[in-house]
């Protein structure tokens, strides 16, 4: 008989062996991942929307009709103009203006930029913290591991939004920042970074534990390779997939967190508005019928988050077909 496993539970078909002979990258392109991406029109749409939003965020200063941060371009007399398809609109402002006379469309572009930048940096920071702590916990074991994972457990007790609120409040108190404007951005990134590291840490720790006990790691240690090298070369590549999935889903969460804090009035100030700040501003005018001030940033935020979440869902399914 052959070296094939003797247990015959496997009733799923295996395809011809051609797939295995090609390079890694070629396989990725032709793999189930790519196929599942193209198979779902919705996922393609989500990818397209996300990409478009990223482009808009990146080039906001170039494509926005106005600079909403430039006092020379903002006039209170233009305040609360409706979108151009409504009576009393101003043709210069496609989507109307907000309470200070800023062009909604431009404010949206810049708000998207701020939201995505904070979300992205926050995710980066939390991944950095989480992956590092996870590697340390998994590799060091013992008390260090117990301490890190205990803290992670306790942090999980609190919803991330609460942690972010708390960090935000504490940092502002410590900085005694009377004018919050200069520090608000950094504080938001820090709040998000400190709120979302746990999931990375747990995943990475798990993989590290598995890898650590494999023979080649023992061998590597015997021939004198140092721990950081082993971690870097062997453990990291294995956890990149899950980390990417977590990061994608967390990008949506980070954007929501930022928007929520800004909406609650502890995030970004109106002079530097993110989507959440714009919604906060607009919410005040909901009852007076100026719905566009809240609707456009609200819709933009919703579409952005749904699109990113769909990408995250798809990525998770594609990387782990068992969950489908």
């Amino acid at each position, binding site marked *: *008989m*052959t070296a094939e496993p*003797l247990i*015959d*539970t*496997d009733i799923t*078909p*295996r395809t*011809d062996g051609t797939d295995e002979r090609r390079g890694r990258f070629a396989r990725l392109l032709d793999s189930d991942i790519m196929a599942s991406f193209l198979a779902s029109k919705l996922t393609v749409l989500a990818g397209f929307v996300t990409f478009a939003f990223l482009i808009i965020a990146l080039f906001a200063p170039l494509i926005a009709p106005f600079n909403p941060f430039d006092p020379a371009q903002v006039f209170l007399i233009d305040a609360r103009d409706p979108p151009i398809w409504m009576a009393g609109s101003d043709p210069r402002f496609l989507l109307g203006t907000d309470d200070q006379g800023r062009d909604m469309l431009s404010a949206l572009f810049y708000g998207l930029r701020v939201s995505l930048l904070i979300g992205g940096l926050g995710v980066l920071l939390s991944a950095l913290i989480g992956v590092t702590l996870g590697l340390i916990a998994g590799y060091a074991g013992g008390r260090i591991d117990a301490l890190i994972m205990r803290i992670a457990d306790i942090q999980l007790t609190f919803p991330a939004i609460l942690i972010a609120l708390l960090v935000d409040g504490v940092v502002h108190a410590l900085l005694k920042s009377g004018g919050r404007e200069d520090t608000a951005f950094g504080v938001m990134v820090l709040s998000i970074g400190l709120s979302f590291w746990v999931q990375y840490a747990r995943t990475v720790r798990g993989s590290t534990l598995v890898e650590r006990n494999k023979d080649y790691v023992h061998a590597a240690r015997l021939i004198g390779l140092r721990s950081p090298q082993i971690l870097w070369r062997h453990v990291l590549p294995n956890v990149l997939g899950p980390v990417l999935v977590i990061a994608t889903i967390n990008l949506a969460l980070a954007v929501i967190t930022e928007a929520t804090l800004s909406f609650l009035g502890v995030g970004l100030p109106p002079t530097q508005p993110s989507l959440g700040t714009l919604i906060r501003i607009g919410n005040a005018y909901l009852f007076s019928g100026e719905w566009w001030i809240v609707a456009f940033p609200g819709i933009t935020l919703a579409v952005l988050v749904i699109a990113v979440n769909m990408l995250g869902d798809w990525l998770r399914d594609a990387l782990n077909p068992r969950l489908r």
Partner: protein
Amino acid sequence: MSAPLLSVRKLRVEFATRKGPLVALDDVSFDIARGEVLGVVGESGAGKSLTGLAIMGLIDPPGRIVSGEILLDGERIDHLSEDRMRLIRGPRIAMIFQDPLTSLDPLFTVGDQLVETIRAHQPLSAQAARQKAIGLLGEVGIPAPEQRVDSWPHEFSGGMRQRVVIALAMCAEPELIVADEPTTALDVSVQAQIIRLLKRLARERGLSVMLVTHDMGVIAETADRVAVMYAGRVVETGPVREVVHAALHPYAQGLMAAIPTLETRAVRLAQIPGSMPRLAPRTRPYCAFHTRCDKRFEPCSSIAPPVTRMGGREVACWLHEPVPAGAAR
């Protein structure tokens, strides 16, 4: 020979994939007579378990039966509705699976599961069903069945759980049991007990058994007849003695050489070099075994061998078949 209890005719099962269908079973035919134990043997992925699932009507999408027939007592059962099929599963055909640890619902007591199964098929009161459950547990060799009937699945050892699984399969008094690798997941010491139990039940109750295994040794000891599968096809069927001692198909010969006997146990078992080909998108226009076969000649790589009947045996191999003119290019 009287009419067989179960007859599988030219069964073909395909799996739909993104790249088109893959043939998992192709032209599979065999019979099981009443009271007969048919051993189905082959390596992983040969289609043994899938054949069992096909008989039960339990192939889930993306898999499906594309053509062929499954006849139970002369009636087709391969295209019945789920509701009609439910009346076959249990009272006519039962199936037991490989892993007794996962075959039982962990959240219900053994008694609950037995009583539920009995009452799904027979109009018995809860009390009568419970008595019957205790009787069944006793019959499959569970000690102190009156007490153990209220135990949870996790309170049984692996071998005992497989006995419970067999009792569950017997609940509705089936005529045929499809046993899919019933001993693979068990300790070696327990395997023989379970096989003995199945043999005893078959004898006492006149049950037919389709015993799926990769272990030729088990089949040699248990089965009346054997079907050897390779790459989704039946390559040889025949009475177990004849096949074991004088297999016709080169693959079957290789398998038989791999049966450990007292003499060969110490030495390295015979191996067939190479591995089974993976699933193909259509019927192979050649013998699937020819790449590993040391007796191959011209037709093997260009035409699939048909099934030839030789007395009580059947084989699909060009060695036992007149080669059609023009095949040798």
